[in-house]
């Protein structure tokens, strides 16, 4: 391979270091207006009336719209369309919008918001998932009795028999927190009406242009081909710029269509934290049985996820949880129930990890707790029960179509981190500052699995002069997809990456290839690019057969040339091949379409081949805890990840470093404070993410076991990188302090006292610090 598996420079880096790349908020159009949103002051209320007259007459205001003005349906949603672009009768959380304004400046638009008068009738609200499921609780959506947004069951074997056969049973409860994506770029979009015919073009920080287009079509009452969604440069997304962007784009579009002028909307950080969805907080009850030798016999799991006000992707998020909830361990008897429950809290949806960080925190903490009960080294417990080639998962899937590399990633991470020696060294410490080391591992299903249809496309178009376009239905969110796809196209065509130009993702340019989620881009989109580029290459080879006097099988290509394997002096340049093909009237563009291999799922019992392939990872964290203040510093993280094949080792490392940083935030710092539906941490002064001085040394270990389905064997790296950092840190802290914390994050109070004080603060209605 000439280009793939090599550290190519990012193709989008130049514009970014020059400050020239245009993000959503950077876009300017002639005659552009600015849109602003009025949101509800109550988490659950009936809207009695909205008076927009005064706002509408404010000089500089061009439009004021409410739910009554929505041209199509006022709701949208990928699974259950119950999310409101503008609240019609009832508001269900404090991020719900009731009116929108377009004005000549953001300041005038904001003034107009103050002039809109809305009468509400407050309704009983519910903020706790358990209370929301109880009889008599207010029901948020008629079609979700008991406020159940999702319920997934998994049954394997006979769980009670499993417990009966065990020597030891452990029951533990864990809790994870509400977490914000905290992309540094707040949401932004510009909608531009199409002159002369019905149509709208929307630009912005849109993670999933096709999902956005579908939502817009429903809300605007437009045909799909009347809507064009073009992605601007994205200032990070991590799963977070989906539904919230569909709502923003729809609002901007309505204002633009109403006024006939381009309308820009940009969230402040506060608006972003207020309205944008977050990662689900989970409450997890685990019961595990094992023999005294440490063999797992049974696991019973009960999970409540707070879905907040709207369904969004809760059914999918919780589905991944049910598939992976036992961790990468052979457990003969399993019963799992995962519920997603509506409350009047901020809604929750996709966020890097997608239902895995929560369960891995619980289940990997549990493994360490079980090991301690058994008097075993946690690593040994994992080696004893961990997946090996041919293991059968909790969903009954036999892992035999890919290399099951759990033991390999464990061994590599353990060796590089010197885990065993340090584990012993830190076992008996005195003093105020104590160190600890912990590990966690995971298996992760790649791409969408049985969540839904899984296929995607790409187009490769070779130009007369040897330059190349790549169009993809999947989108660059900062992760490096453009570079990976450009490398794959270059590899297949045998040319240098510099010839390839990746085009912005545009719904009018390429078929709907599904969303850029589930760490599926390299695997799915990479295959699509590879197919497309290979088709064009076959055309080029076919065109020069006569000239080279050889059959296609006799040809080889690379370094901008095509030659005869046995006689390299018989060769043509890439340009010559193009000329030849053009003169023969051949098409030098191709659409590549890749459909994922078959997966199966039995909803009733939670059994099936949930994903067509999996990745394995192991992280070891070393910490130092100030035992008098609870302040915890991460000293080192060693992260071993099987990626199948690293298309670009440098960007893989970038994903690992960045994912570990988010994992450290999840472990120690990050928690959106929410009380009775009100988000208290509305900016980065309250919502703390790791800074450059908080980051430890990270050793990234790339493990490569090429997958039969992936392009060049490549699989997945985006999400696994953050999902096991928190439990590794939690176990390291437990070793250092002698006390296990079962709630995230392990902030100062939880590490020092074993509990958070925030709820006391709200109960006592005290301010201050």
């Amino acid at each position, binding site marked *: 391979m000439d280009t793939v598996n090599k550290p190519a420079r990012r193709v989008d*880096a130049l514009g970014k270091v*020059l*400050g020239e790349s245009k*993000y959503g908020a950077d876009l300017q159009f002639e005659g552009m207006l600015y849109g602003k949103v009025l949101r509800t002051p109550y988490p659950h209320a009936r809207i009695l009336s909205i008076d927009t007259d005064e706002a509408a007459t404010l000089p500089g205001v061009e439009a004021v719209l409410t739910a009554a003005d929505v041209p199509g349906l006022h709701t949208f949603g990928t699974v259950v369309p119950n999310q409101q672009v503008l609240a019609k009768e009832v508001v269900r959380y404090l991020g719900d919008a009731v009116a929108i304004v377009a004005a000549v400046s953001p300041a005038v638009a904001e003034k107009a918001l103050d002039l809109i008068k809305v009468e509400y009738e407050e309704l009983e609200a519910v903020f706790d998932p358990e209370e929301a499921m109880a009889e008599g609780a207010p029901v948020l959506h008629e079609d979700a009795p008991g406020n159940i947004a999702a319920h997934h069951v998994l049954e394997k074997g006979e769980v009670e028999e499993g417990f009966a056969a065990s020597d030891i049973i452990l029951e533990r409860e864990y809790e994870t927190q509400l977490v914000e994506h905290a*992309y540094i770029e707040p949401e932004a979009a510009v909608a531009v009406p199409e002159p002369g015919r019905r149509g709208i073009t929307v630009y912005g920080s849109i993670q999933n242009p096709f999902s956005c287009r579908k939502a817009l079509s429903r809300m605007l009452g437009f045909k799909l081909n009347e809507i064009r969604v073009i992605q601007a440069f994205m200032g990070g997304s991590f799963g977070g710029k989906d539904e919230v962007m569909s709502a923003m784009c729809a609002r901007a579009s309505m204002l633009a269509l109403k006024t006939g002028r381009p309308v820009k909307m940009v969230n402040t950080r506060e608006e972003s934290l207020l309205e944008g969805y977050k990662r689900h907080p989970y409450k997890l009850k685990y019961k595990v049985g094992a023999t005294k030798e440490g063999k797992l016999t049974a696991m019973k799991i009960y999970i409540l996820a707070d879905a907040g006000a709207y369904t969004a992707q809760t059914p999918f998020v919780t589905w991944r949880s049910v598939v992976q909830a036992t961790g990468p361990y052979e457990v003969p008897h399993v019963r799992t129930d995962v519920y997603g429950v509506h409350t009047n809290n901020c809604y929750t949806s996709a966020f890097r990890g997608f239902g895995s960080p929560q369960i891995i925190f619980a289940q990997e903490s549990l493994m360490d707790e079980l090991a301690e009960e058994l008097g075993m080294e946690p690593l040994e417990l994992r080696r004893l029960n961990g997946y090996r080639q041919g293991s059968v998962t909790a969903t009954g899937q036999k892992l035999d179509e890919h290399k099951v590399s759990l033991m390999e990633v464990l061994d590599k991470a353990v060796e590089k981190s010197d885990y065993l020696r340090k584990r012993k060294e830190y076992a008996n410490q005195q003093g105020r500052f104590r160190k600890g080391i912990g590990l966690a591992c995971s298996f992760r299903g790649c791409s969408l699995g049985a969540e839904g249809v899984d296929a995607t496309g790409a187009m490769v178009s070779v130009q007369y002069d040897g330059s190349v376009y790549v169009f993809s239905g999947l989108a660059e969110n*900062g992760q490096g997809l453009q570079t990976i796809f450009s490398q794959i196209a270059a590899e297949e065509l045998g040319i240098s990456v510099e010839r390839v130009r990746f085009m912005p993702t545009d719904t009018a340019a390429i078929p709907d290839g599904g969303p850029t989620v589930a760490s599926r881009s390299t695997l799915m989109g990479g295959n699509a690019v590879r197919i497309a580029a290979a088709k064009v290459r076959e055309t080029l080879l076919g065109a020069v057969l006569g000239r080279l006097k050889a059959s296609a099988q006799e040809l080889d290509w690379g370094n901008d040339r095509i030659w005869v394997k046995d006689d390299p002096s018989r060769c043509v340049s890439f340009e010559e091949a193009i000329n030849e093909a053009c003169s023969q009237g051949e098409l030098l563009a191709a659409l590549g379409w890749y459909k994922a291999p078959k997966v199966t799922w039995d909803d009733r019992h939670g059994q099936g081949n949930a994903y067509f392939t999996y990745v394995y990872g192991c992280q070891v964290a070393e910490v130092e805890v100030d035992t008098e203040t609870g302040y915890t510093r991460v000293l080192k993280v060693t992260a071993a990840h099987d990626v199948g094949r690293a298309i670009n080792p440098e960007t893989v490392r*970038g994903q690992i*470093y*960045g994912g570990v940083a988010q994992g450290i935030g999840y472990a120690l710092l990050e928690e959106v404070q929410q009380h009775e539906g009100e988000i208290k941490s509305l900016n*980065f002064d309250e919502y703390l993410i790791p800074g450059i001085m908080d980051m430890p040394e990270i050793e990234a270990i790339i493990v490569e076991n090429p997958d039969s389905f992936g392009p060049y064997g490549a699989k997945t790296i985006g999400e696994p990188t953050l999902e096991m950092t928190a439990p590794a840190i939690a176990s390291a802290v437990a070793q250092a302090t002698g006390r296990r914390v079962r709630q995230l994050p392990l902030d100062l109070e939880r590490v020092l006292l074993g509990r958070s004080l925030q709820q006391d603060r709200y109960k006592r209605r005290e301010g201050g610090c």
Partner: protein
Amino acid sequence: MKKLPVVLTVNGKEYSLTVESNERLLDTLRQRLGLTGTKEGCGVGECGACSVILDGNLVNSCMVLTAQCDGSRVETVEGLGTAEKLHPLQQAFIDYNAVQCGFCTPGMLMAAKALLDKNPHPTEAEIRQGLSGVLCRCTGYKQIVDAVKAAAGEEG
């Protein structure tokens, strides 16, 4: 609101402007001068995406009123280098994969430049200290530190 005259030198070019009393330097750069390389991430001086160099000092341009800057020199990412002649920091950010989404990149570059202007051979701890006012959510910062180290080596 009172409007005020301001003379600003931005990236070596002088601008005579009349600005609103409450206009932030960030808005002047982005909206009046079209220099959208400087980003807004939080508006409260926490994320550092809006960092520029004001009279030789690194500042958050969201925390400064333009009218406070009469007679000042402002350096933004646009003044750092060109596609033909990149600043060593820009080149290093490309070479070391220090850019992912790129939204923090201008702020990081300006923070790094302010650091190297004063301390051409910083230690890793000094680099981290110097960049500590800019948040990044993508990279975990490692490749950014590597890039600044490399650029410092080259400049020295």
